[in-house]
């Protein structure tokens, strides 16, 4: 007998014919795909657009091709280099100072930017009037942040006093490159021309001034190569640099939590889709057993029967994926509107063909992969079902293909999870977790069936008896339903759980307990008065923190001079040059967690006192628990030992410190205080406190 060849066109025709009366049955299957892929495409599109917009807008965020900055004036060794860079150059000094509004007699701590040159080269200082952004450099003019103008009821052509000089306000500053709403809220910005900085009297030896140099290249330059070359020299001169490329990376990173959460939403939606596909096809194929048996009886081979339904699944997978991609693209237009308050840049809503392509591809893959388990059982449907429908000879456990599909599904989940998490270990744990959840749910379903069989009493009413008996009768759907509903519920709960954690992390000012205003530079003599004033304004005093300025003198006996001599020492060059604002207290704050060593809140007299350092500080300077440090506290050397390393959540608006001293050491050191409060509107309070306590 000659073997019959498989007639592919006929298989397609049969797939079409067979689907005719069942298309509504496939609604669950197709909707699982549509919603899963829609979520994925929407999120992928948003992510691509975000990345594109970061790339496109990074230049205007930096304002120049290269920015070099440091905490001290450029010395003779680095000056020639700084003067040789770029085709166009600008210079800026930044410092924090009190300014005075003569008209309203108000004072306010602000961030003064003294600027010279054509910066910004990309984007602009957005001002009202527009021309003020450039013209303020031509005289004793200033640009003042719009919130400040509002606070002090100031107008263009009013004046402000910065140090010894009175500047005419020539424009209201709406936006400057590199600034976000949050930073300007904490310290509003005032721009003045650099040539008048000396006359203000604020730029003296010892002043805390930031020095920035902005460069623009007229012809394209390989910045990566350039900064690699500059890096050692700038590092030696204790200067940092930023390029458009590094800004892109940093901005991208700062959206990490948001994009990761959105990825999780997409991933969960997709997993729900997978569960939906598997259960819908399982039920669909069960309903098809009779038809498959008839076909087998008429001479259709097992592989042909399998292919007929595979063609259907692929077809529906394609339709569902395309519909999902269209829906996702539509949803993607809504996402930037919902998130506009969190984002410092405008997100475009371009159609992302990459996201659509990925969505459709993934949709087809999951349609087939998660439909394969029920599909391969088609091969084992006996034609004898035409004579006896209850006849079942399928030995599920012994079918090697079934195990292959299980492995493929596991590999898919691991790989896809890896693409989201970027960690093989986490992906494997996640997959093991899902597998355990699957087994627990399957066992629960099995147990339920056993219990029902044992406990159903003939005395029960017909309704209850039959209702519960259906859970264990032949062709029941108990296992598939419990597993599907259970896994889906677990996924959705996970999503809400993570959402809760993230919202807690990012909620800056949603609750009255969360500070949204910091009053700083409060002198010890003013501390009580400011706290009283705050309470008088019916505002909560959330935290009062003493701050002491210190420098590091020695790390394990090594000084800055030793570091210059021995370049092999694993200590950051900035460790000794930086000033550290430290505090002292006897307890940890809720944003801190000790990860190494032991927290000591009070210093023992006569002993080397233990300080607690922040995790990144520890890593950057290779300082660990037990290391010996010597601090210079305003001229007084104070030896200390590292008692603990803390992990700090820097995302909240509150004071966090790289170094925390125990109580009982710094109480008498020169210090200032910070007060944290929560205000419904920053406008009224700032003015009141600035007037009463200048």
């Amino acid at each position: 007998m000659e073997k019959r060849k498989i007639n592919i066109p006929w298989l397609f025709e049969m797939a079409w014919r067979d689907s005719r009366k069942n298309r509504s049955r496939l609604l669950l299957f197709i909707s699982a795909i549509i919603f899963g892929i829609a979520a994925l495409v929407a999120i992928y599109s948003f992510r691509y657009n975000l990345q594109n917009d970061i790339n496109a807008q990074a230049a205007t965020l930096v304002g120049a091709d290269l920015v070099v900055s440091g905490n001290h004036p450029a010395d003779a060794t680095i000056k020639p280099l700084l003067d040789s860079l770029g085709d166009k150059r600008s210079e800026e000094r930044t410092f924090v100072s009190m300014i005075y509004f003569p008209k309203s007699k108000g004072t306010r701590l602000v961030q003064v930017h003294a600027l010279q040159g054509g910066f910004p080269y990309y984007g602009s200082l957005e001002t009202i009037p527009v021309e003020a952004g450039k013209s303020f450099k031509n005289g004793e003019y200033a640009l003042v942040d719009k919130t400040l103008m509002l606070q002090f009821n100031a107008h263009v052509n009013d004046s402000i006093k910065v140090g010894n000089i009175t500047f005419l306000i020539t424009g209201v500053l709406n936006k400057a490159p590199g600034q976000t709403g949050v930073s300007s809220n904490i310290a509003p910005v005032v721009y003045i021309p650099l040539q008048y900085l000396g006359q203000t009297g604020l730029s003296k030896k010892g002043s805390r001034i930031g020095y920035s140099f902005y460069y623009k290249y007229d012809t394209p330059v390989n910045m990566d190569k350039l900064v690699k070359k500059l890096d050692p020299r700038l590092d030696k001169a204790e200067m940092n640099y930023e390029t458009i490329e590094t800004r892109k990376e940093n901005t991208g990173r700062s959206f990490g939590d948001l994009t990761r959460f959105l990825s999780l939403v997409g991933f969960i939606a997709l997993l729900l889709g997978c569960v939906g596909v598997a259960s819908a096809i399982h039920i669909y194929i069960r309903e098809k057993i009779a038809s498959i048996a008839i076909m087998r009886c008429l001479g259709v081979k097992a592989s042909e029967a399998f292919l007929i339904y595979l063609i259907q699944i692929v077809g529906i997978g394609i339709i569902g994926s395309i519909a999902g991609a269209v829906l996702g693209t539509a949803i993607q237009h809504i996402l930037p509107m919902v998130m506009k308050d969190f984002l410092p840049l405008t997100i475009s809503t371009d159609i992302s063909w990459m996201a659509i392509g990925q969505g459709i591809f993934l949709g087809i893959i999951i349609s087939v992969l998660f439909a394969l388990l029920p599909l391969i059982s088609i091969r084992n449907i006996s034609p004898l079902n035409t004579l006896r429908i209850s006849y079942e000879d399928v030995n599920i456990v012994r079918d090697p293909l079934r195990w292959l599909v299980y492995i493929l599904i596991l590999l898919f989940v691991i790989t896809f999870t890896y693409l989201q998490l970027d960690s093989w270990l986490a992906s494997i744990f996640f997959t093991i977790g899902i597998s355990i959840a699957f087994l627990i749910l399957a066992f629960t379903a099995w147990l339920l069936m056993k219990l029902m069989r044992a406990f159903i009493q003939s005395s029960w009413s017909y309704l209850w008896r039959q209702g519960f008996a259906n859970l264990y009768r032949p062709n029941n759907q108990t296992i598939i339903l419990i597993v599907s509903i259970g896994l889906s519920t677990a996924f959705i709960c996970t999503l809400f759980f993570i959402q809760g954690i993230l919202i807690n992390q990012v909620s800056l000012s949603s609750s009255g307990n969360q500070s949204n205003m910091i009053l700083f530079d409060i002198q010890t003599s003013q501390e009580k008065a400011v706290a009283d004033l705050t309470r008088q304004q019916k505002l909560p005093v959330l935290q009062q923190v003493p701050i002491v300025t210190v420098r590091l003198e020695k790390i394990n006996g090594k000084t800055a001079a030793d570091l210059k001599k021995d370049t092999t020492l694993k200590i950051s060059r900035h460790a000794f040059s930086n000033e550290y604002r430290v505090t002292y207290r006897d307890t940890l704050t809720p944003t801190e967690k000790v990860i190494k060593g032991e927290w000591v809140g009070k210093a023992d007299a006569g002993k080397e006192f233990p300080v607690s350092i922040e995790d990144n500080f520890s890593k950057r300077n290779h300082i660990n628990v037990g290391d010996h440090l010597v601090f210079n506290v305003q001229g007084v050397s104070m030896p200390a030992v590292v008692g603990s390393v803390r992990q700090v959540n820097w995302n909240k608006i509150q004071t966090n410190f790289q170094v925390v001293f125990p109580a009982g050491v710094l109480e008498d050191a020169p210090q200032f205080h910070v007060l944290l409060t929560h205000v419904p509107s920053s406008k009224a309070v700032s003015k009141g406190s600035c007037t009463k306590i200048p």
Partner: protein
Amino acid sequence: MLDNINFSVAAGSTNAIVGPSGSGKTTLLGLCAGLDSSSSGIVELNNINLGKLSEDERAQVRNQYIGFIFQNFQLLPTLTALENVMVPLELRGEKNIRARSLDLLDKVGLADRGHHYPAQLSGGEQQRVSLARAFSNAPQILFADEPTGNLDAETSEKVVKLIFDLNKEAGTTLVLVTHDLELAAKTQRILRIKGGKLIADDKTVNA
């Protein structure tokens, strides 16, 4: 289920397997038609030992040599009457399928119902479509499992007449499984089984 049953069926003959419920009639039909494989013994069909064939090879044997009629018709519900008749021919890769299938539907009196789905047809009509399908691949042997079991007396009579007429016209071997002795008497030979054993093998007046 079955114990020591030996018999052979001559080409072109009509045969009935009768017995009470649970006697093993359907099991015997399943084995003879290659729908099932036996744990021991030999089933030969057209000199092909079915026991030595794989499931797919038996499917090909069924498509090449066998026609089926079932008690509950077993039409594919998503295919029209005409498409149901066409399936065995399409599987064989034959030509002029539509015309030949329409001709068969005409023979069973359903030429004008070809585009109806099974759910739109009465029981008798469905069984007639099933008959047209069974004869579409010009089988050498036709297995019928209680072909009138789901039909009323009047319809049964018409269907039985059609089975025997078409069978005679095509010269097909017929094996009927039934517990309707009146129907069995219309064949040339009656095999009686009980408790899985062949208890009688009688020729009828039609032999």
